[in-house]
């Protein structure tokens, strides 16, 4: 986490991005004018290696996808000279026959390793991995993934993904080794590379896949959010379509830790947030994954769940949130933590509210309301 002077929340929504600035003690928040107003912002992320820089993914209703860059803390934004685009000749299988593979939108942005200033990764829909070596100005295909002979097997046909499109997300860079990468795909599963993206192997052993013909499939799973702990990089947590998991990398097998969640709540959700200093502590935001998957808070009663022992037990944290009729949920990159001594937690809802806690989730209050559907929330120090 970069060290700056003032905490900001970077909010990406269906209709643009906003910055929330800490008004003092994380008790009140000032909101900026909209950025890229009217466009769908899937992710807006600060560069921890150069904190004035930010990268933002944008898609307008009629226009192709693009990426915007700021080098002055979000005041001025310039479009990437060469946004992510698949190389010519790559195809996507479809019930209508093979189609040219094209980027629908840039979904996930990830700064590269601390030793590689200017390096960024982007995950797209359909599943694509791209790299920039000039702070996001131009993007190149990571062909070890995009042009891999097994891409069609890993990623499936066009119609087989989620209704909003299949996505590559959860790009994790091992802080000990810039060449060691993890990605998540919905659908596709978790994959790992130890050669900077030149080759990839699936890493899904132990993950349930009740929607696949073969429940023990090597890939084809639906991780919603995968996080590597920066202080314990061989520990991974995952909020999956089929539960909450933890992996100790040496064991190479995911353990379902969501079975300890209350049965009436279940362990389905989108985000997974890790404590910045304690690898045993993390937070999730459960949603209703029963029947046709309403994807709202279970029973309309929103709550965060927290574990402080790596998933052995979970506690409910909802003080300050609506006690009923909270029929919303939180998308996978719309919940985050700050680096405070008492960690601040933040999430944005599908109904346009930002909720904040300054005491690790114990108490919550609204930081902003009335925004469009929130798609991402990231903490930044500017």
């Amino acid at each position, binding site marked *: 986490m970069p060290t700056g002077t003032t905490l900001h929340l970077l909010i990406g929504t269906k209709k*643009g991005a906003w*910055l929330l*600035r800490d008004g003092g003690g994380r008790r009140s928040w*000032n*909101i*900026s*004018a*909209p*950025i*890229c*107003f*009217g466009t769908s912002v899937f992710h807006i992320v600060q560069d921890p290696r150069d904190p004035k820089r930010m990268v933002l993914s944008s898609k*307008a*209703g*009629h*226009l*192709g996808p*693009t990426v*915007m860059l700021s080098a002055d803390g*979000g*005041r*001025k*934004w*310039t*479009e*990437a*000279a060469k*946004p992510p*685009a*698949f*190389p*010519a000749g790559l195809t996507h299988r479809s019930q209508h026959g093979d189609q*040219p*593979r*094209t*980027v629908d939108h840039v979904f996930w942005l990830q700064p590269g390793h601390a030793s590689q200033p200017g390096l960024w990764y982007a995950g797209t829909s359909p599943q694509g991995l791209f790299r920039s070596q000039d702070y996001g100005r131009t993007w190149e295909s990571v062909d070890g993934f995009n042009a891999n002979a097994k891409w069609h097997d890993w990623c499936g046909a066009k119609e087989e993904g989620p209704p909003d499109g299949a996505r590559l997300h959860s790009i994790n860079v091992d802080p000990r080794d810039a060449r060691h990468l993890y990605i998540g795909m919905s659908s596709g599963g978790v994959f790992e590379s130890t050669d900077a993206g030149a080759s990839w192997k699936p890493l899904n052993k132990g993950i349930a896949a009740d929607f696949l013909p073969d429940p023990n499939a090597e890939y084809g799973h639906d991780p919603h959010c995968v996080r590597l702990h920066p202080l314990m990089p061989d520990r991974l947590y995952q909020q999956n379509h089929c539960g909450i998991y933890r992996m100790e990398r040496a064991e190479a097998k995911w353990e379902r830790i969501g079975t300890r969640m209350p049965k009436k709540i279940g362990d389905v959700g989108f985000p997974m947030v890790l404590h910045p200093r304690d690898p045993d502590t993390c937070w999730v935001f459960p949603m209703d994954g029963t029947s046709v998957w309403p994807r709202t808070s279970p029973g309309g009663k929103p709550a965060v769940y927290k574990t402080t022992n790596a998933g052995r037990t979970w506690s409910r944290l909802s003080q300050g949130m609506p006690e009923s009729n909270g029929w919303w949920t939180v998308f996978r990159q719309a919940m985050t933590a700050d680096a405070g001594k008492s960690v601040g937690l933040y999430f944005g809802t599908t109904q346009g509210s930002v909720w904040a806690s300054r005491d690790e989730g114990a108490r919550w209050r609204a930081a902003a309301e009335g925004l469009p559907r929130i798609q991402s929330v990231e903490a930044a120090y500017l």
Partner: protein
Amino acid sequence: MARTVRVFVPGPLRSYTGGRAEVTVVAAGALLSDVLAAIEANHPGIRFRMIDEAGRIREHIRLFAEGELARDLRTKVDGEVQIICAISGGLQPLPQRSRLDGQNAVQEFAARPIDWQ
């Protein structure tokens, strides 16, 4: 043969043209692809918002040459191209300030310093 073409630009794309609704370009040939290359040369980045990496006109973009709907980029152009965003109210001025800075379109979405409320 080079030709001068008038291009009508819808609202969502005017951040690339400094807010102008109409621009004139000199195309190297008579095809729509030539006109798009000329537009891109003058207004970098605009082509990819209309045409995907496989060379297809994007789903909600329509290009008209001399008032006729163009099905692909091999359509012949005489002197006029209209770019249309399907069912998009698009003739209002840009709500944000936009300008051209060298070769790149720049959009300033927030006043300096950021307009905090």
